[in-house]
């Protein structure tokens, strides 16, 4: 090690190798991001303006034709399915996560075990969870229909009835996501200062008043974060649909992401699929922006 002055030497005397050094730290990340993120974004936009051949080479310049086609096709129906899926899964998932966290946060013996059980879906991947649920939801031999039959409910064709398919996939998705929501809310609750809750009790607040007027405002930033992340996640649901319904029956679960996958990798129309991916991105940005506009005002930050 050669001795150095604590202050950097005057600019002129800094050697070029030293000026170059910071960029060497950045080089690996920058190179990989350039190849696998920046360039693909540009190329997606470029491809979306062309008719492409099955090898993904642009052939005929179409301008915005792909976008216009998408907006006058069943793309909008897929967007509707996606929004419905978000609506089915996100609010219920947040409420369940919050209620479970409240239950498991009470000072009782054995709550650690319940906390571990409630977070267990975290370790279940979408592919594994979906496979298990395909078995459970089997209309003939499945456990769910059997248990419902015990209370007199006729068998339901969960994954093949267009009225039920999206709800069924949503239910599985909520279960898969429950571990995440629970863990998030629980750490939110653990950060609520005890003095605040004790002060509320001294002022005569019962459990409900305490929850409504102290806990809920205090963890509203966590709720907001979970909502934003949950919407983005629900927009991108793929494995559950690919495994359980493959977009069917009669497109009842054909979300935008699944549709993009079909167009790109089953029909090899990369240009059209790129245009739809960009439209999806725009919708997601707009929705996230709206959430921030609506949410930020109601969220209580300390």
């Amino acid at each position, binding site marked *: 090690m050669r001795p150095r002055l604590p202050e950097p030497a005057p600019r002129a005397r800094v050697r070029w190798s030293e000026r170059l050094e910071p960029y060497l730290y950045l080089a690996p990340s920058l190179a990989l991001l350039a190849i696998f993120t920046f360039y693909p*974004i540009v190329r997606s936009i470029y491809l979306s303006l062309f008719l492409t051949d099955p090898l*993904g080479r642009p052939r005929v310049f179409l301008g915005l034709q792909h976008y216009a086609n998408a907006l006058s096709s069943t793309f909008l129906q897929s967007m509707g399915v996606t929004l419905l899926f978000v609506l089915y899964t996100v609010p219920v998932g947040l409420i369940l996560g919050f209620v479970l966290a409240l239950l498991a946060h009470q000072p009782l013996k054995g709550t650690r075990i*319940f906390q571990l059980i409630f977070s267990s879906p975290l370790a279940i*991947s979408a*592919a594994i969870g979906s*496979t298990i649920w395909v078995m459970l939801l089997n209309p003939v031999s499945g456990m769910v229909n059997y248990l419902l039959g015990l209370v007199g409910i006729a068998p339901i064709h969960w994954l093949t009835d267009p009225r039920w398919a999206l709800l069924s996939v949503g239910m599985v998705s909520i279960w898969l996501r429950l571990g995440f929501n629970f863990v*998030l809310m629980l750490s939110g609750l653990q950060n609520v200062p005890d003095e605040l809750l004790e002060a509320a009790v001294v002022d005569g607040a019962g459990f409900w008043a305490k929850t409504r007027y102290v806990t809920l405002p205090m963890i509203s930033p966590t709720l907001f974060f979970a909502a934003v992340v949950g919407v983005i996640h629900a927009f991108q649901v793929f494995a559950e649909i690919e495994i359980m319904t493959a977009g069917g029956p009669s497109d009842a679960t054909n979300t935008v992401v699944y549709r993009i996958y079909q167009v*790109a990798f089953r029909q090899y129309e990369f240009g059209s699929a790129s245009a739809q991916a960009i439209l999806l*991105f725009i919708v997601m940005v707009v929705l996230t922006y709206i959430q921030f506009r609506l949410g930020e005002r109601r969220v209580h930050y300390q």
Partner: protein
Amino acid sequence: MSLAARLNRLLLYVALTVAAVIIVFPILYAVSISLMPPAEVNTFPPRFVPSTPNWANYADVARTVPVGRYLLNSLVVSAAVTLGQIATASLSGYAFAFLRFPGRAALFALFMSTMMVPWEVTLIPNYLTIRSLRLLDSYPGLILPFLATAFGTFLLRQFFLQIPRELEDAARIDGCGRFRFFWSIALPLARPGLLTLGAYTFLNTWNQYLWPLLVTNTRLMRTVQIGVRFLMNEEGMQYHRIMAGVVLCMLPALVILLWGQRYLVRGLMAGGIKG
């Protein structure tokens, strides 16, 4: 304790137990089916537990399906992506936190802007890139696109920023070079950050679905998730064997959850945006 308080506590335990049973039921039921003799599966009424555990299901599924290979593939890919991300992100995170250089703010903004872009937008070009490099059905094809992320850089930058700058000044007075400070002082101090990024990246990569589905065609290159997906095609309706495969495939993640929950939770909270 008053009667009301006891009743409250009892109700709470009942609610906790009911919720726990519902949540964990699919997992336990999968384990139970995986141990059933074939004759007890698909009976009516369905059985909850096997009369005697039939371990042969595991041997059967291991004989017809390369479960070990799936697990190995997932392990190799997840470990490589995790180590790669820790390496690239610690270097770039350190640069953004500690070094001053022209263009720093602009480069940082460029990094951050990619966090909003969902993978659907980069998916098709990346697939075309990997295919044109003839890397389909290979480990590099599964690993390369995920070796650097803006999220990892951002996360580790936040950890490096917590290290006092005076420490660097002191080290440099003592003759410690830049890289040596990074390697033997800053990195060890940022250990919780590295573990957080590591746990999060490992689980995320382990659970990846769409990318390995696209870039693997041969059976021996499948990751665990893709292997599970094809179990249903390959084993027909033989749920006892499918579930034996499923249980083998979900064990590693369950172990990781038990072992690294603390880091996982931190990573999930920091990284949920890209979840």
